[in-house]
């Protein structure tokens, strides 16, 4: 009996040890990736990175045009995608809460949420780039917006569903029409959560590369013309990292560091936003 007992204890200890090791393994990757990024990218951080254009091979320069390009693309994408996501999420949580349509949309949206982003790029190429005859910032922004919609929709629906029904009922009892209940009661109560969704979607698209490859393409020069090909940070990293030039590779690492820090700050900020929401 004691031998069996010891064997079980040993097995349990072994399993717990493995689970601890697995956790350290997972955390190790995070530390390793961030460490390498800091080590390789930090040296390249300078004012020039934010004030100069991407250089030709062999010369020095910065990442100004891709940074600005990324900011423009991301802002347009969020401006296009957020309203659709919020309105659709509102419908699913309010007007159509128990409708069949809602469960179908939720299912489809969850699939879009994890759909391969390169396919979104192909789709936008087919419907925008090919008919227009040229690559453009608009196409890139639309591709990114298609990634924003499912993220915002999902969080909006979840957050509005969390609003307690008595709050709605109290408003209805005053004779307030539904549209006002939604806008002044539900949105107000769910505001922090909805903002989290938007921040998460920004974090998601600011590192997206695949959907921009055949939509916004790239631009070596300063350009804020949204109707023309537009540079973006991820694409420049892709191009520079795979190039044989050391200067370009160093810039790619710096760009990678900038993106990662921005994305991590956004995701941590989004989490802090929901965590600190103590008052209703």
């Amino acid at each position, binding site marked *: 009996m004691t031998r069996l007992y010891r064997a079980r*204890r040993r097995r349990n200890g072994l399993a717990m040890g493995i*689970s601890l090791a697995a956790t350290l393994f997972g955390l190790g990757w995070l530390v390793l990736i961030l460490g390498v990024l800091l080590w390789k990218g930090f040296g390249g951080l300078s004012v020039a990175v934010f004030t100069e254009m991407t250089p030709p091979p062999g010369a020095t320069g910065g990442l100004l045009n891709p940074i600005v390009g990324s900011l423009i693309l991301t802002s347009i994408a969020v401006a296009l995608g957020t309203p659709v996501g919020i309105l*659709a999420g509102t419908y699913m949580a309010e007007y159509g809460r128990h409708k069949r349509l809602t469960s179908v*949309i939720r299912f489809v949206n969850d699939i879009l949420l994890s759909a*391969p982003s390169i396919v979104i790029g*192909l789709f936008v190429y087919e419907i925008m780039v090919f008919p227009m005859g040229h690559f453009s910032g608009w196409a890139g922004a639309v591709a990114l917006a298609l990634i924003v919609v499912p993220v915002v929709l999902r969080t909006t629906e979840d957050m509005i569903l969390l609003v307690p029904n008595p709050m709605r009922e109290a408003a209805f009892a005053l004779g307030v029409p539904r549209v006002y209940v939604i806008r002044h009661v539900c949105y107000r109560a769910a505001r922090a959560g909805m903002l989290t969704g938007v921040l998460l979607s920004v974090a998601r698209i600011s590192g997206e590369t695949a959907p921009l*490859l055949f939509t916004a393409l790239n631009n070596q020069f300063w350009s804020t013309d949204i109707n023309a090909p537009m540079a973006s940070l991820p694409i420049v990293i892709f191009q520079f990292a795979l190039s044989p030039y050391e200067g370009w590779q160093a810039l790619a690492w710096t760009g990678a560091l900038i993106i990662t820090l921005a994305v991590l700050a956004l995701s941590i900020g989004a989490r802090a936003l929901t965590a600190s929401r103590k008052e209703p």
Partner: protein
Amino acid sequence: MGELMAEIAMRDGTIAVADVRARSKVLSRLRRSDTVFHAVTRAAAVAVLVILGAVILSLIDGALPALRQFGLSFLYTERWNPVTEKFGAIAPIYGTVVTSLIAMLVAVPVGLMIALFLTELCPTWLRRPVGIAIELLAGIPSIIYGIWGLFVFAPFLQHTLQPFLIETLGAVPGLGMLFAGPPYGIGILTAGLILAVMVLPFVTAISRDVFETVPPVLKEAAYGMGCTTWEVFRHIVLPYTRGGVVGGAMLGLGRALGETMAVTFVIGNAHRISGSILAPGTTISATIANEFNEAVGDLYTSSLIALGLILFLITFVVLAVARYLLLRLERASG
């Protein structure tokens, strides 16, 4: 009545009526704005369905020329020759499936063990930070994994794990062909391992969430009988959450199948099927990312779009099954 109505005033100051007639006018305006808002939100919701439909239709439309030209043989031929315009998809499909399988083989057990740690072993105050740290792995953009994989991970594998595998397992008859050839660094195995790190947070997060749905009574009963933590996990928690765990794994698989940039950096882009997992290969997404902009000729472009269609259909099925399994668990737990 009139006086009573006159006192109604809304926050925005939109309603301040003096008599019943004005009131009915305001009411009908409110009703109208409610109808409009209802219609607008429903249109936005339906737009999501339209997007999915449009994606599928446009991919089918773009893929038609290639599918007409090659028929079903597109699915099982290996040649990929832009010069003679002969295209077949089996090499990228093979690469996609094998890299994803490697990723799942690593990520699922590790993810489950991390979830076990987070739900049973970890002190409560440490749960949230560790959970968030693991989830941050999911937030790192895939291009970062790519550049990191190419410059740090691939050389590391080339000098350590791969020579080791060739020397030990490479000599084993049968199994050895999986580890044949020189250590390139980049290749199927490297891509699979990078994918494993990328899907690890998804598997972990979902496993942890479904483990938490196990009613405490079940676990307490087992503990009360003297079961160890591992026995409770193995015989109570895992059987209870099997559907959810499989669903989470499939969700990770869906991610791995469609992952583009990280794989493009480290796969090596060789359009052939090689018995060895150390050899370079290609995946559907890497092929599209590398070749689409350089593709000349309608047939070439169309073949790449056909690849995209295949990828979309595969991931669609995998994700649909995953969602179905998770949904069932959600319903069961109320």
